């Protein structure tokens, strides 16, 4: 997928056309059950509505990355060394 370049940051943005594949309500119910959520109808409607917002947000996040691009949340082994005296 080709992305857009944000000139200020040099970050490649997601292609907006990729954001339109919002799952149907039935698909969201299925996904929720897979995630262990068996919600009453009122809360299910909250999930369907909220997920549309989250989907749009996630869809704007760039995906075309080099294989070795580390995320921010990394494992730091020094944190597991014994405390200094």
């Amino acid at each position, binding site marked *: 997928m080709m992305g857009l370049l944000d000139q*200020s940051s040099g*970050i490649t943005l997601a292609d907006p056309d990729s954001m339109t594949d919002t799952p149907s309500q039935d698909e969201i119910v299925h996904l929720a059950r897979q995630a262990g959520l068996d919600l009453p109808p009122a809360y299910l409607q*909250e999930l369907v509505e909220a997920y549309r*917002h*989250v989907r749009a947000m996630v869809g704007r996040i760039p995906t075309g990355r080099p294989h070795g691009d580390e995320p921010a949340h990394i494992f730091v082994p020094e944190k597991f060394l014994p405390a200094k005296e």
Partner: protein
Amino acid sequence: MSSPAYLTIAEASKLIAARKLSPVELVEAYLGRITSLDHLLDSFVTLTAERARSEAKAAEAAVMAGKPLGRLHGIPYCLKDIYDTAGIRTTAMSKLLTDNVPTRDSHCQEKMAAAGGVLLGKNATWEFAHGGPSWDVLFPPARNPWNRDHSPAGSSSGSAAAVAAGFAPATLGSDTGGSIRGPAAACGIAGLKPTYSLVSRRGVIPNCFTHDHAGPLAWTTEDVAILMQVIAGHDPEDPASADVPIPDYTAALTGDVKGLVIGVPVDWLETESPLTPATKAAFDAALDVFRGLGATVRPVVLPSLQQYDDAKKTIAVAELFTIHGKDLRTRPELFGASLRYRIIAGSLVRAEEYIQAQRLRTDLARAMQKVMATVDLVMLPTSEPAGKLEPVPPSSLFSKVSFMTPFNVGGNPALSICSGFAANGLPFSLQIAGRLFDDATVLRAGDAYEKATSWRSRRPLL
């Protein structure tokens, strides 16, 4: 001297050390105001009056015995109700934690007590420091002391309202996307989101691990610096805690900002999220104060607010669901509707999406540091003056960008201070952000501005 309740920490500490003010007298002044006025603001959810009286008596005895005094000796303070306090209920405003009484103090509470502080009680927050304002949680939302029909913002709502109202000179809050700075701005006080990892979060109920910060709120920047001296420092029990030297924050308050270079992200303020004319005028006036003190101001270009928001909120919704998933699966009815809406979709964020958001966070944090290397500080309003206290659509979390979130993503220190008052009497705010671990320069600038202006002489009338 007017009521001791309006003394700053710096002023009260000098008087206590000189035996001109008793800690007992001071704590009674605050307890009197809280018991007679807090029904107007709902800023406290738990008052620890007897404990406070007992601690104040002990503090007074130590003064009279000539014992060494801690940095906060006899100074009353309160804590956002997400800080664990041994033997004192800690609820996060949630029905899920109605009966939660921790057995151990949070790291910050240990530090505040060891410095001689006197705990007054626990402050209202948004549920789990995230969803709100809410009327369907354990306690009612706090109100803004400048106008009770207006919001104190969130999530450290009660903390900021209590300090502005003269119910306490000090409090600790938390900031994941602006929850210290937003309430400080709305209530016209000073609030610092320190550099990420500088203050331990051990014993603070989490919101989003990778963006959570603990930090102080007070009437003045000088008092914030005093509080930072007490709570900053390495804690091996917080996995993110930095092991770095802690400077003398109070000594850094020289009043001198001559030669500092201030960057202004004009694209954010003029194009992406334009300021109202009144807020722009207040911001321009604040920059003029810094120019008058010898600083220079120039534009800077940062990545878009939308990118910062997307990265932070995607990470947050996944981490929030990780924290609350068990309860959402088994007893979702105990959540307030606002919080439930804001975290439930985290169940459907895929691991790949979370990791891509973390990669974006790395890029955005690097971009922030690249710009910060070219200036000493970045300044912008914290937010527009406070809006009405009324239910807001929970979807607004996803649709509104924030001037504060970029500094959570970058981890940079960011201070909010009062920069005047709107025609309706509500405070304007100035946000001052700095380089990583250079909290001292941020505090120096905030203190210099406060001392060059007269805004600290105005208090809300209840």
